[in-house]
């Protein structure tokens, strides 16, 4: 028993000495490996985190949204529907929402102007999302001028900024009063953008939305689950694109690994022959080479995953958040809640460490079964 342990210790010592002897080659390999895993892990952590984030944000959004459709497009909906909706059994509350998009030509950015339902905003003032505050360098007490779609200049005093917890969704928001909103867009009185409905019993969402469809025949009824699904497919799609790009990188890496590993140098072959001739078993030789490849790939994997974690959760995925989130100017630089899943780690592990280790073992095995008498030549 002691001998077995001692023997493994010797093999590990020898492995470490071997790594040190081929320092240049192993460091190069380590660097490429780290880069690859870093990119893969960042994409995976970011996608996962974003989805999680979206789900959190949506959890606070209405269970059912009622929109008006005109010629298949989203249209304004009359406030007069509210009373009828409130009469439907199972509906806890129904509220008209006022929101719209504004394109800031100077900054080439899109904002979402909204009238909040849970707070009142003084006319002439606005509360802005953190990204806008950053972009236009605004703070409380400043003023901002927006040119309305009707080519009229509006001045808003900044009454505050929104906290950045839910930045993914709230970063580009401008909260204004109802009067300002209607004046700015020329929004007709008695109309709202859509209606938010909450239900008494979450299990009744489907029944209630069916009732609403029957009551307002030209309405589109969207449930929170629908929105969640479309968010998810959006993120899946973007992540899919990145994955396709990464597949190329992985392929390049496999070729490199194969080349590095399969092309056992003449020197290494000779070394394997010597070890066998002086009494090492084939399994000892393979164990040493296995640990050599394993230590490089496992070490690189751990370093890269740690870097990716820092990148995504401390630096907001700065390197490729634009591609993943898709907002060119106004992308929020929020900090996601650190979130790792074991399945994610396992996937990346099996995409990188396992193929590399196999790629190294095959040629070593071929070299290790050669007859030991070859070193006599």
């Amino acid at each position, binding site marked *: 028993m002691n001998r077995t342990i001692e*023997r493994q210790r010797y093999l590990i010592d020898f492995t470490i000495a071997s790594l040190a002897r081929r320092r240049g080659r192993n460091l190069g390999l380590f660097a490429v490996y780290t880069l690859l895993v870093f990119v893969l892990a960042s994409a995976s952590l970011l996608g996962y985190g974003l989805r999680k984030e979206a789900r959190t944000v949506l959890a606070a959004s209405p269970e059912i949204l009622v929109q008006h459709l005109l010629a298949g497009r989203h249209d304004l909906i009359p406030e007069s529907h509210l009373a009828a909706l409130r009469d439907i059994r199972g509906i806890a509350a129904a509220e008209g929402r006022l929101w719209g998009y504004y394109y800031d030509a100077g900054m080439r950015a899109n904002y979402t102007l909204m009238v909040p339902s849970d707070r009142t905003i003084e006319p002439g003032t606005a509360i802005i999302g953190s990204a806008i505050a950053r972009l236009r360098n605004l703070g409380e007490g400043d003023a901002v001028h927006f040119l309305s779609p009707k080519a009229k200049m509006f001045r808003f005093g900044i009454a505050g900024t929104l906290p950045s917890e839910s930045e993914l969704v709230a970063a580009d928001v401008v909260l204004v009063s109802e009067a300002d909103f209607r004046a700015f867009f020329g929004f007709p009185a008695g109309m709202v953008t859509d209606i938010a409905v909450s239900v008494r019993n979450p299990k009744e969402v489907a029944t209630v939305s069916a009732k609403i469809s029957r009551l307002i025949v030209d309405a589109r009824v969207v449930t929170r689950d629908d929105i969640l699904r479309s968010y998810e497919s959006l993120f899946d799609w973007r992540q899919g694109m990145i994955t396709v790009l990464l597949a190329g990188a992985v392929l390049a890496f496999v070729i490199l690994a194969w080349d590095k590993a399969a092309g056992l140098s003449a020197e290494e072959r000779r070394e394997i022959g010597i070890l066998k*001739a002086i*009494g*090492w078993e*084939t399994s000892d030789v393979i164990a040493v080479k296995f640990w050599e490849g394993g230590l490089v790939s496992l070490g690189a994997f751990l370093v890269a995953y740690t870097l990716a974690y820092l990148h995504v959760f401390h630096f907001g995925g700065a390197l490729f958040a634009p591609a993943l989130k898709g907002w060119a100017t106004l992308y929020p630089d929020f900090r996601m809640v650190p979130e790792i899943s074991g399945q994610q780690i396992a996937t990346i592990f099996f995409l990188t460490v396992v193929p590399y280790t196999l790629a190294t073992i095959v040629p070593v095995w071929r070299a290790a079964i050669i*007859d030991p008498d070859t070193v*006599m030549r």
Partner: protein
Amino acid sequence: MTGSPFLALQGIAKIYNEGRHNEVRALADIDLDLEAGKVTVLMGPSGSGKTTLLTLVGCLARPSAGRVTLEGRDISGMPERFLTAIRQRTFGFVFQRFNLIPGLTVADNVMLPAYPLGRPHPELKARCRELLEMLRIGDRADAPVQWLSGGEAQRAAIARALVNDPAVVIADEPTANLDTALTAEFIGVVEMLKAQGKTLILTSHDPRICDAAVVDRVVEMRDGRIVGGR
């Protein structure tokens, strides 16, 4: 054990690349008994099969035909793993080009054959020191082997062959790259090992070796056959 053959070869043949167009009959009809504690030299022109015979004696390779018996046990048909185990305990090798592993120190090279046996480290280190002192290269223990002179490299290779305390030491052309003074020193080492009771099997076409007083037996080879001896 003196008198009974320690190692016996009967009807040995070795054919490389058998059945292919580049087939080479390296050895044929070899019958040879080797006694324990003796120094035997295989002599003959280049290509006569000396190295090939050493690989069979040292369990580095298996014969194409015939029987190899070690201490009465037929080992010619044994699987690789058993041959490895026998090699670890019974044979030490000094290769023609020494075959030290560059980048490792002299001491690390010397200890390599002991790793698979899992001997306790302090004991192994002491054994290594002792051997290097005996071969008078104790001060080079921590030098990387690529710094060694030819004579020092050979001593390191000899130390490595001895680390597991084998009964038989096998050396292929041990003096091929050595001058007269170093050859004389090598013969001194052979005398010392013989005095310790080791069996030595060497190949050489160097008359300084074949005529040395320490040599008990010379086997002459030609074209893969034994043609004489004394």
